């Protein structure tokens, strides 16, 4: 068998070599994708230390379960699913310890989004890409973890309603109402932030 050129090998080659128990190819995979995995953890948790801990835990879990990886999705997709599940477990535990957020109470109690006026102007008009990213980041931070997560999973990970429901241990109806609320709230927050900046 020819020697694997780790630096130039594809992800698939590195995965195959790692599945045979070699750690050097796995280290290369970690190095290539650690930013993406950390970024997903950070976007869900909004806390650097927790994101670092859980992203590293995801890499450990990835190694332990590597033999189960059938390569029907890309390695990064598979790793992203692992980190998402770890973050969701972590957030659920935290949620159980804390009292319900005001947003969740409002949403469960009949939907604050019904009282929000429909905004007739585009909240992101004439914004530079970087500025828009910053504004979205600020607005995302203001959402509860349930609303932020459904948005992230749907918009950035491209998950369907039923996949989100499975990951979040809730019904498709709950996913739909959370997504609706999250979008309307995000739109309103972006407009408020825009108005603040224009003042």
């Amino acid at each position: 068998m020819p020697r694997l050129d780790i630096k130039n090998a594809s992800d698939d080659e590195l995965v195959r070599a790692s599945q045979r128990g070699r750690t050097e190819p796995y280290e290369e995979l970690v190095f290539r994708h650690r930013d993406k995995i950390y970024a997903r953890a950070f976007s869900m948790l909004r806390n650097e230390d927790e994101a670092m801990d859980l992203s590293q835990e995801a890499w450990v879990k990835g190694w332990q379960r590597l033999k189960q990886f059938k390569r029907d999705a890309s390695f990064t997709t598979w790793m992203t699913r692992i980190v998402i599940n770890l973050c969701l477990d972590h957030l659920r535990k935290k949620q159980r310890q804390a009292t319900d957020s005001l947003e969740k109470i409002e949403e469960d109690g009949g939907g604050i989004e019904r009282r929000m006026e429909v905004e007739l102007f585009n909240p992101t008009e004439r914004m530079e890409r970087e500025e828009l990213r910053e504004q979205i980041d600020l607005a995302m931070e203001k959402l509860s973890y349930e609303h932020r997560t459904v948005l992230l999973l749907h918009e950035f990970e491209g998950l369907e309603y039923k996949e989100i429901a499975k990951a979040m241990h809730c019904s498709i109806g709950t996913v739909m109402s959370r997504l609706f609320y999250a979008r309307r709230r995000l739109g309103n927050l972006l407009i408020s932030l825009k108005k603040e900046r224009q003042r």
Partner: protein
Amino acid sequence: MSHIGIGAMENEDRLKLQAWLDGELPTHEAARVADWVEANPSARELAEELRAVKVALKVGEMPVSVEDSREFYWSQISSQIDMEEGAEPVVVEASPWMEWCRQWLVPVGGLAAIVVMIATVGTPASDPQIPYSEGDTAAPQEPKPTTAPALMRSASPAAFTEPNGNGEGEVPAKDVNVLSLPSDGNPNLQPSLNERTIPSIENPER
């Protein structure tokens, strides 16, 4: 579906509108919702707002990255992997012989010990204590403790002295070879024993 404002719009209609935007509706239902949105200004406005948020999110997330060096980051992961692999319980398969011993010898042995105990404790008259006097050769001897220094002294009395702390009287390491075994005059015995019992540093697997 009716021509009403968003505030009065049924929750089901709003969610259906959103599902239509997300491409989650079957074709026939998607066509029906599209017609409704087209005919209903409130639904159209809501669709525009939701679409604007969807488009805004297309710019992606703020880029964040791990600041630790590759080596440090990996060392944390690999040590965690090593720790968890080491922590897994080692299941030792018992051999059939060991299993047989556990099944039969242990209970039988235990039973035998109880029988012996009952036989000895339960019948004191059968084992009278024999008094002994000083000088009696039958008296039990107190076992004398045997210490390593005593052994070494007897083995090489001239070579061993207590270290005095300032280096005086301390014996060079080569003179106190506690690992050396008596060769009984056989020059072939000692090297082979040493070779077997003390693996060399160069080849620890020997």
